[in-house]
């Protein structure tokens, strides 16, 4: 039945998704550890590219967004039942790790791979 539900929703609510450029998507973003105030601690790398997800989630969550079933239902609840229940949010889906070289307070030097430090793709959930 999903197809018919989707077509029912798409008509009246399509405009609420906003223009294409405002869709939930990955935005490249770079910051230096100096800007974060950690450059006395972190030796390498100098720059960090965490990226971020921003934009409106569409009323009909297409396959490429990798949304879970819950997000589809929450969209339906928002549309059909109670608008106090928010639409799903645009958040990171996949992450990549980053390797950091840092100095510890006691003067030891640490190489460490931190998981989930770079957003690679986005989802609505």
């Amino acid at each position, binding site marked *: 039945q999903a197809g018919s539900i989707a077509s029912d929703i798409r008509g009246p609510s399509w405009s609420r998704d906003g223009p294409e450029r405002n869709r939930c998507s990955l935005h490249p973003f770079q910051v230096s550890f100096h800007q974060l*105030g*950690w450059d*006395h*601690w972190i*030796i*390498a*790398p100098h*720059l*960090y*590219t965490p990226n971020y997800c921003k934009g409106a989630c569409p009323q009909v969550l297409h396959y490429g967004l990798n949304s879970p079933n819950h997000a589809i239902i929450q969209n339906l609840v928002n549309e059909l039942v109670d608008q106090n229940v928010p639409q799903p949010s645009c958040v990171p889906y996949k992450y*990549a*790790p*980053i*390797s*950091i*070289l840092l*100095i*510890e*307070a*006691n*003067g*030891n*030097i*640490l*190489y*460490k*791979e*931190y*998981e989930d430090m*770079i957003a690679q793709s986005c989802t609505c959930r």
Partner: protein
Amino acid sequence: RVRESSIALLAETPTLPLIRELLEEAPGKQQRKPWLLGHPLRYMLELYQRSADLHGHPRENRTLGATMVRLVRPLTRIARPFGGPWFIQTLDFPLRTNRVAYQLVRATVVYHHQLHLAHFHLSCHVEPWVEKRSINHFPSSKRISSEPSLLPKVWTEMDITQHVQQSLWNHRRHRVLRLRFVCQQQKGSEVLEFRRGTSYFDSAFLLLYFNDTHKSFQKDGFLPRDFMESESPILSRMAR
């Protein structure tokens, strides 16, 4: 002020490993750089460049075999003449209390196997520290030579994993790895008078390789041991 407030915000959620490390292990701004120079840093920078690209992305072909490598510098370097052409330094390496989510996979000691002091040449090795003078070698030690070395030829990396695991790793407090850095003047060279207290900075350092098992612990419902051992209200609730 912005930075202070962001640190305060981080302090409210101290359970994430990254945040705990930020709060506990980041040095103060004033502490910066006196120890940044020297061989240990150069070694770790080369290790970093081999393991990650300029942006910090871990290289797919990295050969570390661990997700974390800690370079530990000796706490004290007590040097003493030992009669004749000998020069000996006692090196104490402080080992932190073990966090259960980090598994030690390898321990090595890196040292100069040749020291050149003015016109004097010494050949050196590292051995476990014992009370009385005797020749001791690591029973299972071996020089690492299978992988391309990060080190200039004057440095040697020796595997002491078994020694660290057997003698120290399960001790929960006051864990200090004590080693002797022993140098002997090479034959034929003029005898150099070593004075008591002579110390050669960064003649040796320790490398500890760990794998981070946080994810499997979270999955299995475990908490890090240091967290479990604390007397926090959360622990009390869990105990009930």
